[in-house]
């Protein structure tokens, strides 16, 4: 077990089995976010903040498209079982303790997006020797970089005035989401020989 991808091939590329597992997890998570953003986005924008929702939807789509094309896919028999547990975890979970149903749903989505954008760092798995010109390597770096930017919308919303009265509920829900998704991510990686600190 290692904290990083490997062993790399002679050209500094990540083993296809590891590429497949990581890309499948990321596609599942970002696809779930894209779906939920799409359902939330109206055909005609009627608030300024919805422009950010539109941007989030299309950035998620970009990430999925990028992974589909940059990954060297190989068959992974455990993916069916794992994907089922991932998809279950992404189900919308309105935040408990918020009486306004619409706000609770949006806050729940924001915690999921925060946990995915902040807690999943695929580029941190790349060893120093990874080939910077390899499309999968470049894709992971780009996804991690873009996630840091996408995260800002979630931070603004979760720390914002609408949720200020529910600070404890927000904090607790977000920590739960981080722990849950961190655990899934760690389990997905363990199956391909990568170990990262596990969420308790």
């Amino acid at each position, binding site marked *: 077990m290692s904290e990083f991808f490997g062993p790399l091939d002679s050209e500094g590329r990540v083993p296809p089995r590891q590429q497949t597992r990581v890309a499948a997890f990321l596609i599942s998570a970002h696809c779930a976010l894209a779906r939920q953003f799409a359902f939330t986005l109206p055909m005609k924008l009627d608030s300024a903040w919805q422009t950010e929702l539109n941007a989030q939807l299309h950035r998620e789509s970009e990430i999925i498209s990028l992974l589909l094309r940059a990954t060297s896919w190989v068959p992974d028999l455990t993916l069916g079982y794992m994907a089922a547990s991932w998809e279950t975890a992404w189900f919308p979970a309105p935040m408990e303790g918020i009486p306004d149903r619409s706000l609770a749903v949006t806050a729940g989505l924001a915690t999921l997006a*925060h946990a995915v954008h*902040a807690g999943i*760092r695929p580029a*941190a798995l790349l060893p120093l020797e990874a080939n910077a010109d390899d499309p999968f390597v470049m894709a992971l770096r780009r996804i*991690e*970089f873009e996630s840091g930017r996408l995260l*800002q919308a979630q931070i603004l919303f979760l720390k914002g005035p609408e949720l200020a009265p529910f600070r404890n509920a927000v*904090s607790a829900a977000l*920590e739960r989401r981080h722990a849950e998704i961190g655990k899934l991510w760690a389990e997905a990686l363990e199956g391909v020989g990568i170990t990262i*600190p596990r969420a308790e």
Partner: protein
Amino acid sequence: MPFLSHGSYRIRYELDGPAIGPAYVLVNGLTQYAELWAAYRDALVAKQFRVATFDLLGQGTSDKPALFINQDDQVAALDLLIGELGDGPVFLSGISFGGLIALRYAITHGKRLSGLVPMSCFAELSPQLLLLGNAMRTGLILGGTSYLQDLLLPMNLSDQWLKPLLDKLDSVKRQGWLVNDVYALQNLMESFLDFEPLTPQLASIGVPTMILNGEFDFLTPRALHETLRVHIPNSSLVIIPRAYHAFTLEKPALTADLLARFAEDVLAGRWQGNKAVWIAPEEAGGALAPFPAGYDHLRAIPTQGMNP
């Protein structure tokens, strides 16, 4: 790897050196992690100090609260760590953000300390520091941890330190990039959003205090350290020659020697703060020199001043 528990969060720490005897507790700067004190551990343990290092909440291997990190929680975590040290003398030192946490601790728990060493530190946000902090936060948001490191390295380290590393800066930055997460660093920075100056409370720090400031510190210049010197009763200011904000990384042998000598002087009853201004030697073991009488230590050119 031992951990302390603060509520639901875990704080990773390390104790080295003899269990009996004086202890030094070292508090990280904003983008740092406990391993960066390795040279200090070695030097201070060799002089029979016990050394405690840890990752603040949001740093390194400690838990990273997802949304809110309060500076009071950092002080509480520090108090837990100091509680692990028993009843012996405790000297507390921190750099930059860690220096601020050390100051807060000294204000609220000063009786537990035998000495305090704030380094590259501040008690208030001057307009320059506020705007630099805002710019660094924006840099982090727009460019990630790597961009923040790109800003901090040339601002806080000398040409002499940087020059041999210019073609391997990526590897210099890598560990800091790996262990620090954007959201956690952002939370640490945003713990300043409700910051109130500590200056009115500095007079309550009764312990011997040695303030260390790099000669060329751009991020927290002399004037910010002067606030500490003027308001902390039993203090003195020591200027580290040719040093920038991150002199703990650049001059570990000299800084560790100054820390050890300060603690030894305090324990031997030799320490006299007197709000004096000193110039540190260039190398470990050299003598400190008083700042030349009649000149203004707040200026970068030899200008006659009121009183050093």
